Every structure is written in C-alpha cells, then in structure tokens.
C-alpha cells in the first residue's frame, strides 16, 4: 500500500493527486467501459488522498472536523503583481535626509488668549482666528492693510500649497504604480490596477481626409478656385446628383423632359381607371338596398297590427308566419 502511494504525486494544498504511471489501452471498446475504467482508477487515487487527508491532525469544530492544509506544492501564477511600495513623499524624503524624526505632540495645548486648554488642531483650536480680538501693530506693518484679512489670506495660501504638495506626491506615486487603490487621478484616468497606459487616440487616414475635405470646401466658392495641394484628392460627394433634361426638342430626338413628366402623369391618371366599376361592390350595394326597402315595408305592416313586440324577434316571427 505504501509503495502504491509513493507512485502518486500528491499535492495536499490543492487536494490534487496524479498518477503518472497509468497507461490507457489504445482502443477502448466502448465509452461505458472507458468511463468505468477512469472511475475505478479515480476511486483508487481519491482513496490515496483521503488516506492522507483523514490522517492529518484535526480539531473538532462546531461544523465538523477541521484540518490544517499544507501549502500547495504546484506553483501557479499570481493574478496580479505584488503591491508596489509607496514612494516617500517630498517631506519624508527631506526628513530622512536631515534625520528629522516624528515627535509626538500633545493633543491638548494651553491657549494664552482664552486662558484655557484647547485642541491643537481642528475645531475650536488654539489661536483660532475667531478668538483673536486684537493684533498688535508692528513697525514693519504697512499702513492701510487689514491684519485680520492678511491672516485669513495667509492661512488660505498655506492650505492651497499643502493641497498642491499632496497632489504632487500622488502623481509621483502613480508613476511607480503605487497609488492607493481608492484614489484615481482624473487627468490621466488611470486604471484600478495593472499597468495600462492610455495612449492618445491617433486619427486614421479616413478621418483626416474627411476633415481636410470639410476645410477645403468651407469657402464661398465651395473650394472651387482654391489651390490644391500636391496629392490632395477631391472630396467624396455624398448624396445624389440631380440630372436636368433638355427642355427643347432637338432634331431627330424626342423631348425627354416632356416624356418624363407625361410618364408620371399617365401613371397617376391610370391608377384609378381600372376600378371605375367594381362589380362586386355594386352587386352588394344593390342587395343591401333591396333588403332595406323590404325591412321598411315590414315595419309599416307590424305597426298596423297594433301589437308591441321586440324588434329583433318580430322580423323573424312575421316572416315565419307569412311562409305558413
């Protein structure tokens, strides 16, 4: 048994077993036999892997015995590349060069203005613009300048600068394909993953020709008197050309224009000529008329009899009576 198992290649990680020594007979007599042969051999192989599987140390779980599978031994390719390391930001690079290390700062700072403990950043922070009622004038101040406004503008420029730096760092990261997966740079429309550079679309020959043709005919004379460039072809004409026939009759030739209009006129005139008298229609009309007349006569008769009868039935009954 042990010898047999050694013949098989077993990959426990993928639960795969492979028998490289089995040889199928060249001509199996029927399909049933062939499938049966495969099933028998398959059962043998599955038993071999089950022997290993069920002998692994297991621990009882709520849903059944759990075993720890070894790593797959068959190497299969990855789906995507390894995550690429994020490049250092400009500040991180600088800090590394200078040996600057992150120092932890307190979240709470004492604010001299309000004589209170406040957060360092965010809402209601220390030295908040709203908390400064007086800014002392300095010698260097320019007259006529609003110091409060100046503070606001400075803050705004700082924020804008930081945003610019952030985008610059993101752009650098995208160059080495290490952009965070939830961020996309809209200008380049980078794909989610993988290295796909979107090349700008090249106009093909036909597109160029059509554009050149449009430009060439966009003059008052529809480009008739313009100089042609060497190799420039006339623009393709889309649509129908109208053909004018000579109006006057020449020697030995019919008036084509008149003939054409005659032809059309005849066609219209002859359209209604066939069914001037529709025999079937005439016969049916004649019959209907006769029927109506007879009905009228009967109505007058029944009204004379003086009995009120339902109209629909009266016709039938009266006709029957008359036949008897």
């Amino acid at each position, binding site marked *: 048994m042990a010898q047999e198992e050694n013949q098989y290649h077993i990959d426990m990680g993928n639960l795969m077993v492979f028998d490289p020594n*089995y040889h199928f007979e060249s001509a199996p007599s029927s399909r049933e036999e062939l499938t049966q042969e*495969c099933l028998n051999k398959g059962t043998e192989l*599955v038993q071999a892997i089950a022997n290993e599987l069920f002998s692994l140390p297991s621990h009882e779980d709520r849903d059944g015995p759990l075993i720890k599978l070894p790593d797959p031994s068959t190497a299969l*390719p990855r789906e995507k*590349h390894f995550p690429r390391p994020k490049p250092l930001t400009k500040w991180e690079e600088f800090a590394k060069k200078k040996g600057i290390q992150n120092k932890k700062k307190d979240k709470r700072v004492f604010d001299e203005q309000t004589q209170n403990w406040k957060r360092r950043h965010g809402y209601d922070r220390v030295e908040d613009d709203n908390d400064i009622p007086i800014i002392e004038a300095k010698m260097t101040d320019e007259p006529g300048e609003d110091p409060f406004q100046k503070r606001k503008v400075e803050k705004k420029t700082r924020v804008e600068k930081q945003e610019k730096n952030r985008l610059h760092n993101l752009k650098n990261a995208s160059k080495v394909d290490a952009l965070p997966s939830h961020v996309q740079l809209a200008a380049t429309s980078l794909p989610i993953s993988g290295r796909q550079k979107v090349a700008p679309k090249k106009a093909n020959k036909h597109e160029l020709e059509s554009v050149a043709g449009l430009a060439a005919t966009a003059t008052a004379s529809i480009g008739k008197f313009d100089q042609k460039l060497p190799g420039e072809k006339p623009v393709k004409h889309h649509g129908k050309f109208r053909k004018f026939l000579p109006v006057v009759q020449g020697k030995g030739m019919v008036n084509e224009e008149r003939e054409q209009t005659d032809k059309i006129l005849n066609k219209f005139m002859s359209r209604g000529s066939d069914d001037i008298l529709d025999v079937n229609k005439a016969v049916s009309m004649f019959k209907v008329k006769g029927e109506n007349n007879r009905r009228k006569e009967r109505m007058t008769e029944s009204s004379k009899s003086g009995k009120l009868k339902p109209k629909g039935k009266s016709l039938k009954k009266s006709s029957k009576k008359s036949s008897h």
Partner: protein
Amino acid sequence: MLKTRVAKNHRAKRALENRAPKLVENGKKTLILEGTKCSAVLREVLTDIYQLKKDNCVRFTRKNDNVRPFEGGGETSLEFFSLKTDCSLFLYGSHSKKRPNNLIFGRMYDHHIYDLFEVGVENFKRMSLFSYDRKIAPKIGSKPLFAFIGEWFESVEELIHLKEILLDLFRGQVIENLNLVGVDHVYVVSAISPKKVLFMHCALRLKRSGTSVPRMELVEVGPSMDLVVRRHRLPNPSIKKEAMKTVSKHAKKIKNVSHDVIDGKIGKIYMPDQKVGSMVLTSDVKGLKRERREAKANKKNAFKENPTKKPKTDDEIKA
C-alpha cells in the same frame, strides 16, 4: 491641475481595496463568454461550467464579435472585460467549420493575457442528464479534489499545460483550514491519448470502513466531456517569471507572542510610562457631544446665578 477621484463611500472604498494587488490574493474569478457563433452544445458546456463555479464567476450571455484570443488585436476587449469584472481566468466558446465546438481556456496576469489553451469538446453529456441521489450533490464553493490519470500528463507538453490550467480554473481559493465535511466532489481528468482528455466530475460518497479513514466511492454527477487538444500558447518567459513570484516562506518572527496548550495564545505587553501626573484633564472630551457638554455647562451656570431652586432634601419632604 490634477484632480483626484476618491471613492465616495466606505463600501466603494472597500470594494476597490478588494480589487487592488495584494500580497495574499483572493481566489481567481472566472469570466465565461462566447463568440458570434456558438453551438448549442458549447453553450451548454459553458452553462454547466458556470453552474460548477457559480460562487466566483461572471457569465456574459451576449455575442462578442471582436474577441479572438489567439489573434493579434483580438484580445483588447477581453482584457478590458477582465479589468471591468476583475476576472483573471476566462472561458471563451466559439463554433466554426474549421474548429467546431471550440473552447478556449485562458489566464490573465495583471489583466493581460498570460496563456491560452484551445480544446474541442466532444461527447458532451450535460449535468441534468445524470441521475443520482440529490443528497450527495456537491455544494457550490466547496473545495474540490483532483485526480489526474495517465502518463501523458507528464510527458506531453500540451497536456502538462492543460493540467495546470484545469487545476487553476477549478481549484478555487487557496485555503489554510479545511472542513472534512466539505470534501464532497472530485474532478477526474484522464489522458486517454496524447491529444485527448476525458473530463469527469464526480460526487464523493463516504462509506464506513471500520477505520478512521472512510472508504471513498465516486458517483458521476456530470458534466462529462472529451477535450481534444488544439492550439495553445505558453506564457511569455519574462512574464511567467514575474507571475510565479511567491511570498517568502520565512515569515517575520513575531515577538512577544507565545502559544500554550492550556491557555492558548499568550501575548506580553510592555507599557511605557504613561505620565499620568502631567496629563491634561479637561471635561470637553472630543468623544462627548458638544451640545450635551454645553447644555451641562449652561445648567451649572444657571444654578450658580439663581440658587433659589434647590434640590429637595429629605428634611423638606418631611416638613
């Protein structure tokens, strides 16, 4: 200036992060699609394979006229589909006079075609034609077993390739722990000749054998078919080298964590000096709501200003 597009909500962010390249990857997803002409048999083949892999699979049911995996330029839209659906395996069915019932297995690396294998399908018998006890029907998503039979799988280049592709296609996610109850189906693939492979799918019936290892019995549940080898394209060696890279097995030594038979996982924690004395203690903690804090402060102030309303004491109640 550059503009950034960021995921609008956390769910979208999570979904994008799930798609991003990872050290330990998710199971490969499969895309199943067909060409402009696809025979009824082949459509059944594709549907059946979709049924087998339903948990991790995307099925396209429309015709695709510009997908020709083996031809130059015919892979563009396929790679686009792969990117959109996040699938790295695909199955493409087409039917022509030259190659009837043509099935192409393909794999992607980084959403570019990695390798291809083309087979013709013969003697197909679909899943619904097999009759068996429904109790043993394999569950979707359970880890399958594989049995490859035949010397050709070791000697013929095409079949070595096919074996790898079939294993990659059906194996599902690489897992660490396996529940033995979930071992319920096996793919039996036998190389009948160097050009022909018999593919079968069987359920497992575990019988008592008197020992701890049960006796295995195979019940064919379908589909079954013959795969006749046609064209194939091996991966580019440089791409293959990159794709075959693995995480180094020598994991970083985990410090301060030990395991005990009785206690289980034990961790040591070294706490630095907390400097409680110099800590700033304020009542306006960020975790509390500002409105409540302010309301509390107002109440206090109001009480200080006109302390006429005293809280009732026991003496007053008695009086």
